[in-house]
């Protein structure tokens, strides 16, 4: 399958990417690793008329210790996250989850910025960003702004990014992690999660992100509040579906997804050390 025709522009700097977005407006789409966008274009589910390739912006490919937080450039690939010794010690949940995205070939090309910006509720890293209380840095014609991960997801495949903005950095707070867990339920190894749960217990609170339990990546707020007020893992996990709207599809009915969410949240809380 071959995508519909488009014009291709390779950006050699953030500024060049921003001017291309301003110039082409709604017609343009950014291309990072291409591992969400190109499959959609091949199936003609997406047909942008201009692609602005930011895949070569190597100055946005980094994982740095910035004091209070870990700064990750948007073009950092899943494989970089998976093998980073800094993340292994400072954000093991993220490194581990990145190692479970798709398959090795996908992880060699796909980027964290593309994963977060694509806003697919079935993706793994948005749930991790939510659980860890990450901050997303967007750069536009008027400079940069910070968006809390919890404010970032606005609808199915929709985010708070403006069409003329580039996601440039992800900031992961340095947490004093007591425990973490990533639960991904799927039938075939390389697949997206039917349901997934990312949990981190740190600095006296618990963050729980849900994969594929609604039209956006979600925080399991009811579970988090219950844990905060002293509930045990089983009681908190019983609230896993509050505020979710799981869809039925070829892989699972919504009822089955709700069942999985309760089971996986419980396992996830227990694995992170909550009894």
């Amino acid at each position, binding site marked *: *399958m*071959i*995508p*519909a*025709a*488009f*014009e*291709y522009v*390779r950006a050699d700097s953030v500024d060049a990417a921003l001017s291309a977005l301003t110039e082409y407006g709604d017609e343009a789409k950014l*291309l990072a690793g*291409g*591992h969400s966008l*190109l*499959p959609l*274009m*091949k*199936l003609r589910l997406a047909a942008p008329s201009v*692609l602005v*390739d930011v*895949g070569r912006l190597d100055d946005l490919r980094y994982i740095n210790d910035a004091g209070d937080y870990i700064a990750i450039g948007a073009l950092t690939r899943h*494989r970089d996250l998976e093998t980073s010794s800094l993340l292994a010690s400072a954000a093991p949940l993220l490194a581990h989850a990145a190692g479970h995205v*798709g*398959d*090795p*070939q*996908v992880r*060699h*090309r796909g980027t964290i910025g593309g994963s977060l910006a694509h806003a697919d509720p079935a993706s793994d890293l948005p749930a991790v960003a939510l659980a860890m209380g990450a901050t997303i840095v967007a750069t536009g014609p008027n400079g940069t702004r910070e968006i809390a991960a919890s404010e970032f997801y606005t609808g199915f495949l929709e985010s708070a990014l403006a069409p003329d903005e580039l996601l440039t950095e992800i900031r992961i707070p340095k947490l004093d992690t007591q425990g973490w867990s990533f639960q991904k339920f799927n039938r*075939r*190894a*390389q697949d997206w999660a039917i349901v997934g749960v990312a949990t981190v217990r740190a600095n006296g609170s618990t963050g729980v992100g849900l994969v594929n339990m609604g039209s956006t990546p979600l925080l399991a707020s009811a579970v988090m509040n219950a844990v905060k007020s002293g509930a045990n893992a089983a009681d908190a996990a019983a609230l896993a579906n509050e505020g979710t709207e799981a869809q039925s599809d070829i892989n699972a009915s919504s009822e089955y997804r709700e069942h999985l969410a309760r089971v996986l949240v419980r396992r996830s809380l227990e694995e992170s050390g909550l009894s």
Partner: protein
Amino acid sequence: MKITVTVNGVERSGDVEPRTLLVHFLRDELDLTGTNIGCDTSSCGACTIHVEGQSAKSCTMLAAQADGLELTTIEGLANGDILHPMQRCFQENHGLQCGYCTPGMVMAAISLLDENPNPSETDVRIGLEGNLCRCTGYHNIVKSVLACAAESNGASR
């Protein structure tokens, strides 16, 4: 648009439409038909090549994205009649049946051993999760990769 890539050590140029997939450029323009296409959904891995030394699905990249990069395809492995050790291990361990998935399997397996020279059987199975074999000959594929790992570890000791 004009692009230039280094494929199997040789610089090759071509004039492509921006929408040309890398796999089509390799097969149709450069006549490197060893790289197969097995699906429309980026799932099967039959099209796996190395981009800058790492496995990648050439059906999920534009030829334009590869401009200026180093690529290796299955044709670049053997040295004349002498097979690459991974190719030989597939042959010796009957790691193929119809052979359709084999180029992609071999390319993925080489990348896997680059990253993990001493894998367990589970590591190999998980490391090849991006490659499907419709003949379902996974057992001997895994055996081939483990044999190749054992052989190169022996040689380097």
